[in-house]
């Protein structure tokens, strides 16, 4: 091998394509930065920074006139172990779980029917699911209040039919809150489940039937496991806003059903104890984070 050849081989071996790769990597990094940059900046300014401030508040004292007094304390978190507050958390999680379960039980068959209906009807049915969103959430919640009131439509109708002689007290009960939450968040359950059922390959049902499975087996062993991603996504989309709901328990619970968000609202605006409000906010975030992580964990082990 001549010297010239050897030099060429060397050049080739540590040579041009590595430099080219390096250049490609650099340009890919630049592109990623440009694409993610605006969103990242937004999150930094309007999410991470405020969260950091609230986090800092949660370790501060309440000043005499409701100001934040900067001295480190864990007292705000310790106070949460008071049964009064634990109860609020338990009630919130319970009502949110109940809402999720009811949405699932109503939403799954509903999504199934939409996904299995003739293609030309499907979009119309989906629009029907979304129509409530055209009206303001607050207006819809007031409408529910009108229905549930002692002299509301439901009580009047039941009394007129002679089924009851005294009005049922439905408003300002956990029932009213769950009703409002289910009503508000049901579409968030239906849509992801619809998407999974729509993707589901129904020849698998035939295959299972062919192998001796009846309707029950087909549902539990084939359909449900394979549409689980939709069920999990729907559940998380209903649970998270439910557990942190504010307007619904405020209006339909009328101060008698207090959920976490009402407590936070109270601490910030009425009691003016910002540090305690911040601590509650952080525990709420922790609950949501735990739910999300559970979702990803299940999603990973059941990956299809």
């Amino acid at each position: 091998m001549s010297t010239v050849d050897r030099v060429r081989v060397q050049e080739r071996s540590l040579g041009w394509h590595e430099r080219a790769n390096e250049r490609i990597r650099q340009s890919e990094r630049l592109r990623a930065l440009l694409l993610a940059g605006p969103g990242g900046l937004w999150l930094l300014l309007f999410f991470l920074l405020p969260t950091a401030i609230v986090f800092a508040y949660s370790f501060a004292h309440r000043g005499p006139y409701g100001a934040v007094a900067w001295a480190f304390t864990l007292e705000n978190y310790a106070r949460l172990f008071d049964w009064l507050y634990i109860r609020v958390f338990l009630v919130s999680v319970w009502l949110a779980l109940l809402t999720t379960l009811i949405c699932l039980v109503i939403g799954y068959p509903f999504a199934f029917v939409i996904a299995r209906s003739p293609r030309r009807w499907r979009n119309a049915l989906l629009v029907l699911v979304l129509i409530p969103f055209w009206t303001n959430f607050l207006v819809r919640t007031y409408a529910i209040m009108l229905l549930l009131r002692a002299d509301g439509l439901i009580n009047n109708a039941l009394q007129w039919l002679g089924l009851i002689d005294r009005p049922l007290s439905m408003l300002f009960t956990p029932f009213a809150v769950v009703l409002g939450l289910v009503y508000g968040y049901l579409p968030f359950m239906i849509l992801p489940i619809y998407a999974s059922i729509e993707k589901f390959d129904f020849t698998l049902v035939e295959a299972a039937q062919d192998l001796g499975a009846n309707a029950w087996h087909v549902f539990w062993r084939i359909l449900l496991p394979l549409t689980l991603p939709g069920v999990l996504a729907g559940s998380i989309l209903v649970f998270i806003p439910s557990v942190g709901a504010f307007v619904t328990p405020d209006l339909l619970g009328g101060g008698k059903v207090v959920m976490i968000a009402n407590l936070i609202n109270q601490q910030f605006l009425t009691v003016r104890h910002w540090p305690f409000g911040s601590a509650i906010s952080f525990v709420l975030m922790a609950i949501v984070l735990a739910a999300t992580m559970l979702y990803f964990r299940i999603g990973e082990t059941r990956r299809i």
Partner: protein
Amino acid sequence: MTPTFLATETACASGMGGTEPLERPIDVELLDVTKVFENGVVAVDRVSLQIYRGEFFSLLGPSGCGKTTTLRMIAGFEHPSAGEVLIEGRRMGHTPPFRRNVNTVFQNYALFPHMTVFDNVAFGLRMKGIPRDEIARRVREALHLVRLSGMEERYPRQLSGGQQQRVALARALVNRPRVLLLDEPLGALDLKLRKEMQLELKHLQMTVGITFIYVTHDQEEALTMSDRIAVMNAGRVLQVGTPMEIYERPASRFVADFIGESNFLRGTVQAASPAAATVLLADRFPIEVPADRQLTVGQEVTVAVRPEKIRLVPVEAPEANGLLHGRIEEVIYIGTDTFYVVRVSDDTALRVRSQNDRNRLDGGLLLPIGTPVSLTWATDAARILTE
């Protein structure tokens, strides 16, 4: 198992004779089955079939001919609008799929993606409540049969197309059905793998001795594997027979055209006896053709001759007193064979397939375009077809 298989071979060997084995039990019977879909489409039109025990039976036809619908009615996924499906002599009526002693291998395999190979194969046995250790044993056996031992813990997405195909087979066979239904099971595989799987399927069927009903649009596949074939078109069964019968004695123009290749020549009957007729082809060539019924003089008929049955000889050759005379118009060399297009009159040209075999005069070296040639065939190579 073995006697069934031998009987099958006999049926095959009897070939041209077309004698159907009489004493063999019938596994599946269709009596005047019709299926009309909600939109008014008649998918299957008065189909009657008898499928014998241990037989490899194919439903062959172009897409939309009703073959898959017929299979789905046997499986129980569809119910006949009229007529009756019988399995092992019992009327099926509206019996659901899970109460029929048949299993299906689906076109796209329909393996359960969230289950391992083991769980896929075990599914049917679990549904029947078979004890755990027996399930394990039978699943192992079934996987061994399809040469997938050691793949138990894989998921379908981790397997190649051919392996998925085998899992689908094992999943059906492990239930020991009376009849296995296969809906174009090789359709998704590439050509080479398909050819391998054809032979493998045939061997598997001989080993297990289960009746196979096989749906395909691929005539070569049907000829390769089947004991008998039913050729379907537009919802109807046009002909049922062994591969040899179907190929050598097609009953209609559709069958002659769909299976293999044929020259269709229009002609007029000049003379007729119960067993044969003389047909004038292209207004010039009187040809003797066997007939299976009495034809009338002056009747217009179609004569079918397969390209490979025709012998082509240059006119200068001493033995060149052929049936038809013409000139070579086109020469297509395809390796093993050469196709010649020979024009015998202004409106008639024939395709001739000639094997490139050095012992034959027309092999070895190709005849050039324009060569005057004469064409001959054995009398029984031509068929008179009804439309």
